[in-house]
Every structure is written in structure tokens, then in C-alpha cells.
């Protein structure tokens, strides 16, 4: 009896140790791969930073009309955005290589699933990016327009427009990659409907005086009078 227990313990220890011995090179390979990819990513980002600064990437993007990217870039620099994306892509690649060293089948499945998923993911990221740029553009336009027609609470209005577009684009992106499914649709519907309903209530009840004052300011006789004597052209 004792011999059998001893035998079982020895066998299980041997199995675990053998398993560990099989796994260990893979783990070490994973750590090495991540460390190497980290070093390579740091070197690449350093070189890329020098290169993009050398060609004045930010200035050129601005002159091509991509100034909107400034707002969504870290440190207001689209070059930093590009560097960041490339940096994390290299780290991800290193991690995948490391996982392949542990179990090639798992990595193969992971890569296959990732590749199938990638177009949708790229489309979703693009949706969020474009939505962000459009949101900021519209928010700026609304703010300038509100200030120029002396509409009170221009900032609030602009902020509302910005978040509406961001929420809309994020919901579209999540819907596209199939995260959340009906919940996202429902949540967006409730949120959007809620905002519209709140605005309608605010205009209809609470803020009717404010709105009427704004409209009077915009087109009423007082405003015409104040500028009647000035001819700009």
C-alpha cells in the first residue's frame, strides 16, 4: 500500500516536473521574445521619432489639412500617435512569437481568429477615429457659431454635440465588432432618446424663457438697432 502511494507520488512529481521542463523553455522563450520585442520597439520608436521630426511630419500633416488629428494625438502630436501604434504592434508581435514557443497550436488558433477578426477591428478603430475627428470639428463649429450669434451656453451646446457624435460612433464601432450586441443598441437608444427628450423638455418647459431671450437676441429689433449704424462692407 505504502509502495503504491510512494509510486504514485513519484510518478505525479515526475509528470509535473517533466511538464514544467517541457514548458520552461517556452516560458523563457516568451520572456525573451517580449524583452527583445520591447527593446526593438523602443529602438524603432526612437528612430521613428527622429525620422518624423526630421521630415516635420506634424507640420506637413497640418498643411495637408489633417490638423484634426492633433486633438486625438498624445501631446498634440500625430507623430507620437504613429509611433505609439507601431510600438504596441511590435510588442504584440513579440508576445505572439513567445506564445508560439509555448504552444504552437494555441498561437495558430489565436492568430487565425485574430486575422479573421482584424478587418472588423480595423474598421471599428477607424469608425472611432473618424467619429472623434468629426465630433471635434462639429463641436468647434457649433461653439464658434454660438459665440458669433451671441447664444448663451455655447460651450455646453458644443460639448453636447461632441459627446453625441462620440457616443454614436462608439456605439457603431461596438456594433460592428459584435461586442455587446443588443445591449449596446438598447443603451444607445436610451441614452440618445434621453438626451433628445431632456432637450425637448428643457426647451418646452424649464428653458423657454432662456430660449426666447436667445432668439430675441438673435433676431429681435434690439440687435438690429445695436448694429444698425455700422456698415462693415
Amino acid at each position, binding site marked *: 500500500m505504502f509502495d503504491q502511494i510512494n509510486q504514485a507520488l513519484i510518478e505525479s512529481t515526475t509528470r509535473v516536473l517533466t511538464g514544467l521542463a517541457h514548458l520552461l523553455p517556452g516560458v523563457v522563450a516568451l520572456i525573451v521574445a517580449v524583452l527583445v520585442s520591447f527593446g526593438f520597439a523602443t529602438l524603432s520608436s526612437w528612430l521613428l521619432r527622429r525620422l518624423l521630426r526630421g521630415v516635420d511630419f506634424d507640420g506637413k500633416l497640418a498643411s495637408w489639412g489633417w490638423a484634426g488629428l492633433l486633438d486625438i494625438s498624445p501631446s498634440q502630436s500625430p507623430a507620437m500617435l504613429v509611433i505609439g501604434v507601431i510600438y504596441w504592434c511590435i510588442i504584440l508581435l513579440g508576445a505572439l512569437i513567445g506564445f508560439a514557443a509555448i504552444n504552437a497550436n494555441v498561437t495558430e488558433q489565436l492568430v487565425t481568429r485574430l486575422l479573421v477578426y482584424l478587418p472588423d477591428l480595423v474598421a471599428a478603430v477607424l469608425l472611432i477615429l473618424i467619429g472623434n475627428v468629426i465630433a471635434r470639428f462639429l463641436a468647434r463649429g457649433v461653439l464658434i457659431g454660438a*459665440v458669433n450669434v451671441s447664444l448663451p451656453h455655447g460651450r455646453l451646446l458644443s460639448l453636447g454635440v461632441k459627446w453625441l457624435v462620440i457616443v454614436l460612433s462608439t456605439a457603431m464601432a461596438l456594433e460592428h465588432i459584435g461586442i455587446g450586441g443588443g445591449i449596446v443598441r438598447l443603451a444607445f437608444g436610451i441614452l440618445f432618446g434621453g438626451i433628445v427628450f431632456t432637450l425637448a423638455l428643457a426647451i418646452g418647459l424649464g428653458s423657454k424663457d432662456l430660449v426666447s431671450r436667445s432668439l430675441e437676441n438673435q433676431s429681435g429689433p434690439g440687435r438690429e438697432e445695436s448694429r444698425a449704424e455700422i456698415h*462693415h462692407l
Partner: protein
Amino acid sequence: MAALDSIPHSAREQLSQIEIADLVVALPSCSHADTLATAIATLRPALGELLSGGRVVVLYPDRAIASPSADPPLEDPSFQLVPYPLLPIEPYDDKSLDQGLRSLLRVGQVLSARAFVLIGSELGPTTLSEVPALAEPIVNNAYDLVLPYYARRQFAGLMNSGIIYPLSRALYGARVRNPMAINMAISPRLADLYLQSAVGSPTVTGWMTTRAVNAGLQMCQVYRPEAIAPGTGESTDLSATLAHVLGAYFLEIERNANYWQKVRGSQPVRTFGHPVALPSENASVDLHTLVGNYQRGCKDLSDIWAVVLSPAPMVELRKIARLPFESFRISDELWAHILYDFILGHRQRLISRDHLLRALTPIYLGWVASYALQSQNLSLDAIESRLEQTCLALESLKPYLVSRWRWPDRFNP
């Protein structure tokens, strides 16, 4: 003689019969037979005297005066009326101005005319008297471009007085009071240059002035008794007007960068006639509203301004927003700095160009308020000196614009 191919079929036969003319006048805003009859009655004797029997051809819109019976009968070969597909010229609308100019200049070339006159503004007795006044310097003194010099009024043509004229003067070095006028007389030399430019050029308004200066052509002005061009409609949306006018003008600045960077100082342009003294006005302008607009702009748009403006003017603008009404002032140096920063921001597309120009509106209204506060109870001569100071400030700060234009990334406090 230029080819008749460029002329619409409807007018070809009549123009080939006329063959030659000394002066061609285009009246695109003539919309009624009565107005045309008044124009003929005014122009015929005046131009007959100017040209000593030379031939005049007047183009009027064929669609506006469609009925041939409405055309006044004219047997005189020295004064011919030609119906032509002209469209009315909207103030500061490049497309309609380009169409009007090209029609006039093509007809003028076909008829080998010595001078071409375009009256883009609404027709009235004073506008009609502008035709011989504008044509005379070209006919008698061989000038290439003649523009009207409208009489100054305290609160009229402020966009021209505060932005266009000082900028035009500082950049191109010619003291032309109304560089974007839509009434003008043009010589065949300048007409050739214009017709060589691309059709539908995005910046036609002000093109004649900058082109004449760049090409070293002779330019002059004629004193007019009006404060602004008659019929220059005032849009209710000031920011849209500002964006439209300055957008076109800033593009023209970008196009002529090679020329204006070499220009230093400014020279007066010969002005014919006598300055007309308009009676002083007691304008009841609500300056509190203008200052309020500026303060609201400073509160809400300072993030956008900070993208365009250098740090020093930004700090100044914030300080001014906190000043009490009585001491509200935007100095000439600050105004010059702001205008140049907006030109540079427009060129570099720091933000959408339309947003950038519209964001200037509260600062412009602040400048109007500051100008109004400073010019209260001043004579027109004193106001003139006041605006001269603004022009000089832009001229003295021009090296800053040139420097940042060439090296936009250089540090600018």
C-alpha cells in the same frame, strides 16, 4: 482683333457690325428698361465729351431687359447698346465678378477698345457719374487700373478700413483705398493679364489691384462722393461675410507671397478729383453689445485663438477682456499682430480655414468697439489720422509676418 469665338452667339453679329470702339462699359446690375434709359441719358453726353466723338459700347444684361421694344432706339453709331448675357454682380462674390469681368474684357478685346469700365454696384445717378470719372485717367493719362476712392465715414466700410486697406497697403506697398472695389476701369494691358489667368480663379475680388501692383502697372484712384459703393448689400451674418471676404483675400496673399515679401513701406497712389467732405454723423452705436461680444468670444473661444495666435497677443487679449468699458482698447500693434497671426494660421491650416476666419469675428467686433470709443467726437480728419496709425502699425510689423512666413517653426513669444 481677338476672335469672336469667345463671344456668345447672340451678340456676335452686332459686335461684328460695330467692328471697333474706344470704350466698352458693362452694366451688369442694370435690371430695368427705365434704368437703362437713365444710363443712356447720363452717359451719352458725358462720354461723348470725354472721347470727343469716339465710339462707346454699353453692355447690358439681355435677360433682365428681354423685350426688344423696351430698348431705347439709338441711331447714333458713336454710342451703341449691346444686349449681353451678363449676370448681376453680388458684393464680394468671385464667380459673378469673374463672369462680368471676362464678358467685358472679351468684348473690349474684340472691339480693340482703349478702356474698359465695369460698374458692378447698383446703378444710380452717382454710380453713373463714376463711368466717365473712372475712364478718364485711362483715356487721357494711359493708366492701367482706376479704382474709386470712396469718401470716409466713421462707421461705413469698417472691414475695408480696419483690415483690407491696411493689409493691402502694408503687403503690396500701394495706398489704394478700396482695393476690392467692384467698380473699376481697366486698360487693355491689364485686360490681357486677366484673361490669361485661369477661368473661375478662386480669388477674383481684389485680384486686379494685386495683379496691377505685381506687374508694375500704373494705378490711380478717383475721389467719389459716396461713403461706400452703392448697393453694397450688408449681410446679416457678419462671421460668414468676414470668412468669405478674408478667405478670398488671404488666398490672394498666399498666391502673391513671392512678391509682397520683397516690398518695404508703402507709396501713395495718384488720386484724381477732390476729396469730398461728408457731413459728420451722430451714430448711435451700442458699443456695450460689441464689447460684450468680444468678452464672450474671449471666454469661450480662447482655446481656439490660442492655436492661431502667438502667446503675447493672447495674453493681451485676455487682459483687454477684463478692462472696464471706458478703457476698452485694442492697440494698433496688437491688431496688426492678430491679423498677421490669422494670415499665418490660415496658410498653415492650423484648424479648418472657415472656423479660423469665423473665430476672428469677436476680435474684429472688439476692434470696432475700440475704434469707435477712440474716434468718438473726433473730426473726419482726426479719424483719418487714427486709421493711418493702424496702417503704419501693420507696415512696421511686416518683418514679423515675413519671418514667420519663411520660418513658421521659429519660436515666437
